[in-house]
């Protein structure tokens, strides 16, 4: 039973990640390779907030979201000046820099050794989130809030402006919209929600190290979004479910672990190729890539 609950928690983490990435890729047409960096920032700030500052659940979560959002705002100011491929490369640069910081700032992050023993967060200093069931409830609540937020946002004038920006930036500027500000807001929002995933991850796994937040992870998140589909809620949610469940299915099929790991990557790659060929909007998305 605990195994299934673990899978559900991981799915929750990835739903928040894919939804945040969908905001960039699916709604604003900003292909960012730096989402894992913000995910990592959220995780590390959470770990430090719980361990060093002794904060409880909500303040630690808010701190992770706010600091990540602030850093994203600074990085966003730089990156949104670039378009298309240049934007991708700039976010790739951020990803590499932040990963290097996590890996080399040993006095704070313990570098490659990672941070073990992250304490369970307390809710209002009374209730301690300890059991796997507690984490399922916590991650489900945060995922639910994220889904609700993105649903409201997609169907709001803000979401409409993002879709308009994706279609025709020049026309939107001529209608009086500050496209650079719109992109910055999107970038900050996406990073802040990635930090929520980081929070759940750090609190639940109780051990973090930089390899969980490297470029491979960023590509993995984008792959999940593209497989599920972009531009709505359904697509990224299905994408998250797909990428988390697939390796488990392969395990049940009876493939040895080392073969299953490689098969998993082949199937992801193959899925992307087939989807681009036959269903460029992904399994349940609305936008064609």
């Amino acid at each position, binding site marked *: 039973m605990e195994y299934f609950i673990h899978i559900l928690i991981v799915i929750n983490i990835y739903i928040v990640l894919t939804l945040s990435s969908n905001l960039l890729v699916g709604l604003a047409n900003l292909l960012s390779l730096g989402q894992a960096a913000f995910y990592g920032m959220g995780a590390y700030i959470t770990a430090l907030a719980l361990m060093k500052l002794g904060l409880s659940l909500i303040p630690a979560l808010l701190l992770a979201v706010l600091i990540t959002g602030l850093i994203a705002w600074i990085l966003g100011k730089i990156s949104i000046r670039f378009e298309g491929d240049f934007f991708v490369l700039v976010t790739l640069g951020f990803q590499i820099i932040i990963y290097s910081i996590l890996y080399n700032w040993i006095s704070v992050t313990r570098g490659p050794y990672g941070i073990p023993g992250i304490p369970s967060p307390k809710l209002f200093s009374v209730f301690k989130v300890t059991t796997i069931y507690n984490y399922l409830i916590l991650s489900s609540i945060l995922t639910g809030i994220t889904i609700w937020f993105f649903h409201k946002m997609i169907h709001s*004038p803000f979401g*409409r402006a993002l879709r*308009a920006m994706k*279609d*025709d930036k020049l026309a939107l500027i*001529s*209608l009086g919209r500050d496209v650079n500000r719109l992109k910055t*807001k999107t970038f900050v929002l996406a990073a802040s929600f990635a930090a929520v995933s980081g929070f759940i991850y750090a609190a639940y796994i109780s051990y973090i190290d930089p390899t969980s937040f490297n470029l491979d992870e960023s590509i993995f998140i984008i792959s999940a979004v593209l497989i599920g589909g972009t531009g709505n809620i359904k697509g990224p949610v299905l994408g998250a479910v797909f990428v988390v469940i697939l390796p488990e299915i392969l395990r049940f099929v009876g493939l040895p672990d080392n073969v299953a790991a490689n098969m998993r990557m082949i199937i992801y790659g193959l899925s992307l190729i087939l989807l681009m060929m036959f269903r460029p909007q992904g399994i349940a998305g609305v936008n064609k890539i």
Partner: protein
Amino acid sequence: MIMKKIILSIRHISKSFYSKTSGNNYILKNLDLDIGRNQITALIGGNGTGKTTLFNIISRFVEPDNPKNAKILYNDKNLLTYNAYQLASLGIGRLFQDAHIFPDLSILENMLVADADMYGEKPFENILFSKKVRFKEKERTEKAVSILNELFGKKSIFVEQTHLPAGNLSYGQQRLLGLARLMMGDYQLILLDEPTAGVNIKLNDKISEIILLLKEKGKTVFLIEHNMAFVRKIADETAFMDKQKILLKGKTSEVLDNENVQKNYLGII
């Protein structure tokens, strides 16, 4: 407040493009032009004479060579000190040479996104003040439907199928939607870059009807156009552009009947 007769005053605008072989090629050189308030002014001239470049400079998408000496005064404000996106809030709207509608948005959404009131476009407004956002959306929708109704009638595709993606409309219909969209903004000056380009004769009539309606509503229209019959029909004044400058400006009939214009541009004489 006494309104000045001139709404847009363009002074000393120069724009050149550099090429290794021929150096600085001037598209516009020290160009001056005044646009009268509440009238329709047409800008005519051969291809490549810099008409769209001038529109791009006015709209702040292109910087002139000499931003310190040049001036574009709009209601006493120098547009060269503003960003492109700020012009809409000053009251300047623009229709581009190509359709530039939002193809994945519905007809209605194309109208809503053009509203001068941007309430709800901040991400948290929709969460914290959802009731007010819903109210604004209702108001916007009513305004959009009323505009579409007024321009095209209840039986038109624009009113009957407001949820149709705008990308499914024909090119001519997209041009009409672009014009209708301009009525959602609170514009005093509207720049139209070849509104009839690629549009059939029947839709031409509709476009001229809309432009005349804009004038009737107190707007100033400044347009680039190659269709001389269209210009003669709707423009109060016309400016003829050639050799990087405005060579002639006056009443439309006078400009179009001018010997130089007929010989060098219209090829009549």
